């Protein structure tokens, strides 16, 4: 095991952990807004795939990763709005409509990729940004402060989300609508508008998460999210519906994934058991759900569409 404790291995693992945590953090924070307002959005994976495809395609055609990110975010925002139509206006069953969004995103992203791009080509990823001074801290500096720009942005959203949820009127409205929509409504808070807003934030960030993956790996392949969108949803439960909790969850998953990769690279896990190691994130999620559901309760109105007087 000593190979794992060399400085290079540690730096590589920690750096990879942060990079792998980024999409989970973005999508998880986005999902958190929706759930705090009482809407379970199961379609995250589909939105990530669509955002990722359009980000990839834009970056490929215009040779600009930032424009790719922008387009990924916009696609996510549009999907968030449509999700509002489905979940808020049409009051669809949230346990199922999201699977429809997932299938739609899975199919459409694959279809467009095959039809428009065809063979996979590499794109220039978002640039790495080295933070001056901080990057010269031994070991940690190299691992933490030489990431691609979107990784820093994802982590900056954590304090921002804490502020929005806990210190602003908008955040108060979100929490009120998620816990007691009827009371919020009687105080003049528009339940529908608040939920549309949170779903659009969720879509925006899910699109960004998908874009983040393709713009850091530089490639697109069918179903490249491989269940990360679903894990992000579970992270919100895991993180007890709080930004810090979602971040810790994302870090844990990023770390587990990075560690498994590192162990494979160093050939510390036999090839035959690699598939078993790959199931660690999903298994941890199930166990975490058991523990968390004993201690924390979801927002009271989660999955309940709101009708006045109903």
């Amino acid at each position, binding site marked *: 095991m000593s190979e794992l404790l060399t400085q290079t291995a540690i730096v590589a693992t920690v750096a990879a952990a942060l990079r792998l945590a980024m999409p989970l953090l973005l999508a998880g924070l986005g999902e958190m807004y929706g759930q705090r307002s009482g809407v*379970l959005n*199961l379609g995250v994976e*589909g939105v990530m795939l669509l955002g990722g495809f359009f980000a990839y395609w834009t970056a490929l055609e215009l040779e600009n990763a930032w424009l790719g990110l922008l387009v990924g975010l916009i696609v996510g925002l549009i999907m968030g709005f449509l999700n509002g*139509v*489905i979940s808020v206006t*049409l*009051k*669809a*069953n949230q*346990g*199922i*409509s999201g*699977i*429809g*969004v*997932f*299938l*739609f*995103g*899975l*199919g*459409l992203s*694959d*279809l467009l990729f*095959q*039809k428009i791009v065809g063979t996979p080509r590499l794109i220039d990823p978002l640039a790495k940004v080295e933070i001056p001074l901080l990057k010269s801290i031994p070991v940690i500096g190299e691992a933490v402060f030489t990431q691609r720009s979107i990784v820093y942005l994802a982590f900056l959203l954590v304090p921002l989300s804490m502020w929005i949820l806990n210190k602003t009127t908008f955040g108060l409205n979100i929490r009120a609508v998620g816990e007691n929509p009827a009371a919020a409504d009687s105080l003049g808070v528009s339940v529908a508008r608040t939920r549309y807003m949170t779903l659009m934030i969720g879509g925006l960030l899910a699109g960004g998460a998908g874009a983040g993956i393709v713009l850091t790996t530089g490639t697109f392949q*069918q*179903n490249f999210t491989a*269940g990360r969108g*679903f*894990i992000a*949803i*579970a992270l919100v*439960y895991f993180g007890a519906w709080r930004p810090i909790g979602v971040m810790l969850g994302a870090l844990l998953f990023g770390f587990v994934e990075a560690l498994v990769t590192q162990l494979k690279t160093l050939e510390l896990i036999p*090839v*035959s*058991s690699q*598939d*078993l190691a*790959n*199931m660690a*994130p*999903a*298994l941890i*999620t*199930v166990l975490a*759900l*058991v523990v968390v*559901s*004993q201690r924390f309760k979801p927002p009271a109105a*989660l*999955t*309940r*569409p709101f009708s006045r007087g109903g």
Partner: protein
Amino acid sequence: MTSRTLSSSRLQRLLIPVTAVVGALAVGAIMLLALGANPIEGYWAMLEGAFGSTNALIETALKATPLLLVGVGITIAFRANVINIGGEGQIISGAIFSTGAILLLPDTSGFILVPVVILAGLLGGAVWGAIPGALKAYFGVSEILSTIMLNLVAAQVMNFLLRGPFRDPNANELGAIPQTERLSEGADLPILVGSRLHSGPLIAVVMAVLAYILLWRTTAGYRLRAVGLNPDASRYGGIPVKRSIVLALTFSGALAGLAGALLVFGSESHRFVTDGSAGGFTGSAGFNGIVTALFGALHPLWTIPSSFLFGGLLVGANSLQRAVQVPQALIVALNGLVVIFVVSSDWLRQRLGLAEDAHQAEGDSNSDGDETQP
């Protein structure tokens, strides 16, 4: 209920899913146009490819089989107010159990092999359904999340087995396709007609009828539906709510598991094979079964024609691709739209129902409504 409201509710039940499919196909037509393909030509090729010949009908029936089993399973769960999104994992688990059983048994075991396949498939799926059922009933874990996570776990177990213990001993390289050897011939599903049509579709239809009997003619089924309609009232009425939830997911998983067994032992290669992803083995039947169940108005018997239609869509997708060069992924996207349209129009249905007849909200016409909580 008068016969008038009964028939109008029947009509509405069917009208909305049909409208949803037509709507999805209309969106699909726009997508085809946008991709520079002629939608009429494309859809015509699809129809022909799915239903245009005896061979096409046989392929459609075979494709419909896992959709029907998963769809009926989802219907049972849904009737008990439980959402089973774990079809993929349960299919895989059923395939693992049945393949494992056949690999363990000597080839000479003769006529017991096919029943073993079926029972092991049911058992494998039942286990993979009972776990999220117990987690929901006794630990309050949302079954939506746990079933999705168990899909991911099952896929990795499958990969592990097909690259390790279950691997074809005759394959030379490590990099070979993850698959078993050609499994024992005694376990091949009996052929009904010609060379391809095996008894899988028949087994699935029998299961759908049994599920109908379970839900509407047995005490256990009555309890499941009662729990689905009103868990609190059921508890007061002395129904073991928790056990009913576990039971619903166990039945639901068992049917998906059977689908997995039939996929392996009814396949042309008679191997358990994947490309390293869950969908590589299941063909995403675990998700497409949701579409089938919704289109079948969450009724086991209506799910039979529904699965045939969606099986046809999947088979026809091949012809669509050949005719207008649009990838089959279009069908995945359209299935997604059908799900979205069906669940989005639930509200409309209840609206219509209320406007027409206030009594209609009671009874089972709203049991598939949107009161489901995870």
